[in-house]
């Protein structure tokens, strides 16, 4: 690590940023796509929507939405981890007792 520029932290932020920061919206997009496909509204490149409903895909879309929601909940818990630790004694997500 140089004195001027923190390479290590920057690379880590880039790596996990791409994984989570770009990955989560992509996951959400996947859920939207599965939902649209389940409702039979995906437009083919050469024509209008095919129109078959597919409950399995609809269910899949809800599963993926839930995963994204869990990620948000983990984010909130992460922000609040020290507060939770101090007030409940339960240290989660790498919070350290003071």
């Amino acid at each position, binding site marked *: 690590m140089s004195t001027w*520029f923190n390479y290590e932290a920057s690379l880590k*932020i880039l790596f996990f940023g791409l994984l989570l920061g770009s990955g989560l919206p*992509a996951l959400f997009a996947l859920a*939207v796509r599965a939902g*649209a496909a389940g409702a039979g509204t995906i437009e083919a*490149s050469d024509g209008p929507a095919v129109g078959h409903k597919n409950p399995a895909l609809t269910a899949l879309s809800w599963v993926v939405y839930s995963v994204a929601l869990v990620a*948000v909940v983990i984010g909130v818990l992460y*922000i609040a981890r020290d507060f939770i630790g101090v007030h409940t004694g339960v240290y989660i997500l790498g919070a350290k007792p003071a």
Partner: protein
Amino acid sequence: MNLQLFLLIIVVITALAFDYTNGFHDTGNAMATSIASGALSPKAAVTLSAVLNLGGAFLSTAVAGTIAKDLVNGHLVTLQLVFAGLVGGIVWNLLTWLLGIPSSSSHALVGGIVGAMIAAVGGHGVIWTGVVSRVLIPALVSVALAGLVGAVGTWLVYRLNRGVPEKRSEAAFRRGQIFSAALVSLAHGTNDAQKTMGVIFLALISYGAVSRSAALPPFWVIFACACAMALGTYTGGWRIIRTMGKGLVEIKSPQGMAAESSSAVIILLSAHFGYALSTTQVVTGSVLGSGVGKPGAEVRWGVAGRMATAWLITLPAAGLVGAITYWVVHEIGGYPGTIIGFALLVATASAIYLRSRRTKVDHNNVNAEWKGDLTAGLDEADQPTVTVGAGAPGRNGEVTDVAPGTASAKKAGMS
């Protein structure tokens, strides 16, 4: 009442005023893209953001290492100096707000304190390597990292949603944006309210009202800072929200969600890896990225360039105000010096506020079509706007770049 106590009270009031400007300056960071894409109504957005900022502020369990710790020699910090630094921060925050430029509140505060320090003891009181490695370089890193992550996220979203009816995908992403924006607000409250708490805490310690070994400021400090920031957030820095949401990139909800996710994740990661990045610069990077990543989207690089210029002069400009304030307060000295310093702050703030009333940007017109600059076309509904877009498109909002007709229309509105 002795002079030190008087100074302490003035410092606390000024610090809370700074916290308030910090709040409304940064509402846009969390909410601009949600407001622009229509995911939340402007009023709902600022209310949600204010509540989450309030909550976030209470979640702080330790005061972030005092903002100026690695930047100036701590032994030379006095109440007068802290006051002058805060004035520098406030004045710069208000000026950039008037111009609708999202600039970093932390940079403004750092600039003010560094300037006051130079005025007090000269350049040797400043830790210059700290200023470069902790303030200037991270600003560049923020924009680059967030821009890349935001662009990749946006590109993936549009790639994966090819063929999904636009209406359906827009609606889904609008709902998703509420969550991503909430996360940014909460993270902002936890990070930024601590800055002011740190300043007040430092002032209380230097006065001797709080023991040096105390880990947490008194509850009233946390409470007051949380409220000041939430109130500021609720006021909504509409001018800045407009630039962020409409000026840089025309934002659709999938882009908004990608940008906000990128911002939230990078802010949290930077805290986790101990490399403090400025919220404002992270968000601006993400928004730019969301413009680059969407096929066919237009990024107004002129607006971005204007922001970059403002960022470059934030430190020296806030520093100059801090230095002048320190000089006034210190040279006149005693009660008169402090009172005159405070009166000058109030006068400047009022002048800037009155100027902003000439062309108001508020929750009613924040999403109006962007016509070349922040206020163009907002208060001239009855004037023909045919000149806009004719000839040189005045995209970067500088008078020299807009068509003559637009320039005169602008003059009519602004002066």
